[in-house]
């Protein structure tokens, strides 16, 4: 039982990380209609900025604001210099331009930091594990990630549902043209949304630093999964992104944890392991296919 709970926490933690990335992506896609492949690069920039400042100052907690600022600045600059020119173009142009940005960011980071992965030490305050229940110990850092993720989700909920900007975002994701016709400064709104999305990606990046390898190309590894979250949740819906990321995180973790041993009951060990590993890496895509069959626009599409 405690193993099951632990896997549930693992799934939750993975889901929360996905949510931080997916929230920005779904807003950008839903409100501006831009497919931003370079979202993963912002995540990488957040991770590198956080790792660099943490290494220079010796404090992980100084790395966090540095990562947020760097990610938001790069995001806003990206919107201002490149993405702004893509709103009226079709999706192919957007994919090409943002893919080019991935290559440029990767090369720049290689030139600045080299090919060897960076080391981020665990903040001593969050180091170690804590016993939640008898027999269930869990790393404090991962609990902190879950907590931060849930707080961000709550904050976004309040921002979207209780503030003027949130109202514009909601209106924008439902009907862009009407918002513009009503005299709202859409350009300003776009830059704010893009910067906010980048900020969240940077937060995910810096939090990933102590558990993953901070290296060139780390954003592309997680980008596909993030897109799956956006599609399942419904493009433009923060609520959808939240539900879908947690769902995906838990499903992915549970499949990896339990499928091989379940298959062992019906076939021999090595086949079960190979098949289990294969199916569990497909699991989230199967889930996406099923969701799209039932609800073609995703679980919480705003204009459905």
């Amino acid at each position: 039982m405690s193993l099951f709970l632990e896997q549930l926490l693992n799934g939750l933690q993975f889901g929360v990380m996905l949510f931080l990335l997916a929230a920005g992506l779904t807003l950008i896609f839903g409100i501006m209609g831009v497919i931003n492949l370079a979202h993963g690069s912002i995540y990488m920039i957040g991770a590198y900025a956080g790792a660099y400042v943490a290494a220079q100052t010796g404090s992980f907690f100084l790395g966090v604001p540095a990562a947020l600022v760097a990610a938001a600045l790069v995001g806003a600059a990206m919107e201002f210099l490149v993405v702004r020119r893509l709103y009226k173009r079709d999706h192919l142009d957007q994919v090409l331009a943002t893919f080019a940005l991935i290559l440029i960011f990767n090369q720049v980071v290689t030139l600045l930091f080299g090919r060897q992965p960076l080391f981020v030490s665990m903040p001593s305050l969050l180091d170690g594990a804590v016993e939640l229940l008898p027999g269930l110990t869990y790393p404090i850092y991962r609990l902190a990630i879950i907590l931060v993720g849930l707080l961000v989700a709550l904050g976004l909920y309040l921002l979207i549902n209780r503030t003027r900007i949130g109202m514009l975002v909601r209106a924008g994701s439902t009907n862009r043209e009407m918002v513009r016709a009503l005299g709202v400064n859409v350009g300003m709104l776009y830059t704010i949304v893009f910067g906010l999305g980048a900020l969240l990606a940077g937060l995910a990046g810096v939090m990933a630093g102590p558990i993953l390898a901070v290296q060139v190309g780390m954003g592309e590894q997680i980008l596909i999964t993030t897109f799956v979250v956006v599609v399942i949740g419904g493009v433009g819906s923060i609520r959808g992104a939240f539900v879908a990321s947690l769902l995906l995180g838990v499903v992915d973790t549970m499949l990896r944890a339990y499928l091989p041993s379940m298959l062992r009951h019906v076939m021999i060990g090595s086949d079960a392991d190979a098949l289990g590993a294969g199916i569990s890496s497909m699991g989230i895509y199967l889930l996406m296919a099923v969701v799209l069959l039932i609800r073609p626009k995703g679980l919480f599409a705003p204009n459905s």
Partner: protein
Amino acid sequence: MYRKTFLALAVSVAAALPAFAQEPVKIGLITTLSGPGGYIGQDIRDAFKLAVDMEGGKLGGAPVDLMVEDDALKPGQGKQIAERMLTNDGVKLFTGIVFSNVAGATVPDIVDAGAFYISPNAAPSNMAGKGCNENYFVVSWQNDSLHESAGQLASNLGYKSAFVLAPNYQAGKDAITGFKRYFKGKIVGELYTSLDQTDFSAEMAQIRAANPEVVFQFHPGGLGISFLRQYEQAGLLKTVPMVLAEPSLDAVTLKSIGEAAIGLNVSSHWNSDFDNPANKKFMEAWTKAYNRMPTYYASQAYDAALEIASALKATNGSLADADAFRAALRKADFQSVRGKFSFGPNQHPVQDWYALKVEKGEDGKPVLKTVGEVFKDHGDAYADQCKM
């Protein structure tokens, strides 16, 4: 006046020592210099160059012309470079390839053209057994030996049950097969991860539930860094020890993992602290030239250069007589930085394997220390199938 004297001098020197007025030996070094594995190719190139520089631009007394090219970890690109060097530049001696898939595409072309290939790293099983070739020499190890030695090390350390993990691709499966070949205990869990996986928490929970005596995992590069750090953070490092093969923990990954690596067991054929004159000379020259810790890849490339030098010395720097050059290569008449070294019947190494442990160094940073022996005169499982 001066010019005349110089000319006369040059003529007389050339006349007196005809053997030294020879064409430089061209050596094609094809390696991986870009991408996440780029640091490996960099060490191989730098170590080979170091050996040449230490002899003043020569190997075994013969001047060499080293041609370095980047294969970018693309088998097709490696093959193209080899073809170009063979036909346009007339290169007859090659080395440098890091990855087995590049070697698999490139080396057959080289040896079929009658040229020599001296491997400083990759040695896939299909080229060690039935696919062996008289012009193909391996100075590093046969791939399986890396993981066989880890299996033996786990047995030597007295572990009775093991949990094994590797990515779900050919090299990952080979690693687990190699480990199992020499591990005498029970395998209580076998998991295949995905090559693009970043989060291993589900695997950590399963390891804890299975409660093995030891964990063996093969995750090269960035994957291994993530895996080890999450292993430590899950609190497993204190309860379940780990045995690794050298590709999962070289000097570069050790630096990125930091203190989490302390206490890990690694099997290896070379370590920077080996106490023999050849290694001391190498370490001193390397540190002076590059001022960083060499990886084991660097030691292999340096040995490859010494092996080539020994054969060039025996043939007076000539590749014209291929049979004579081959016979000289087979003797392996050089002082390897790993100590004892000889070739088996398939021209792959027969060598000793050692147990290393990660300990805190003098400056507080983790370093690999040699603590014991794993195998003596270990060859490979494929030598019998090789007919030359």
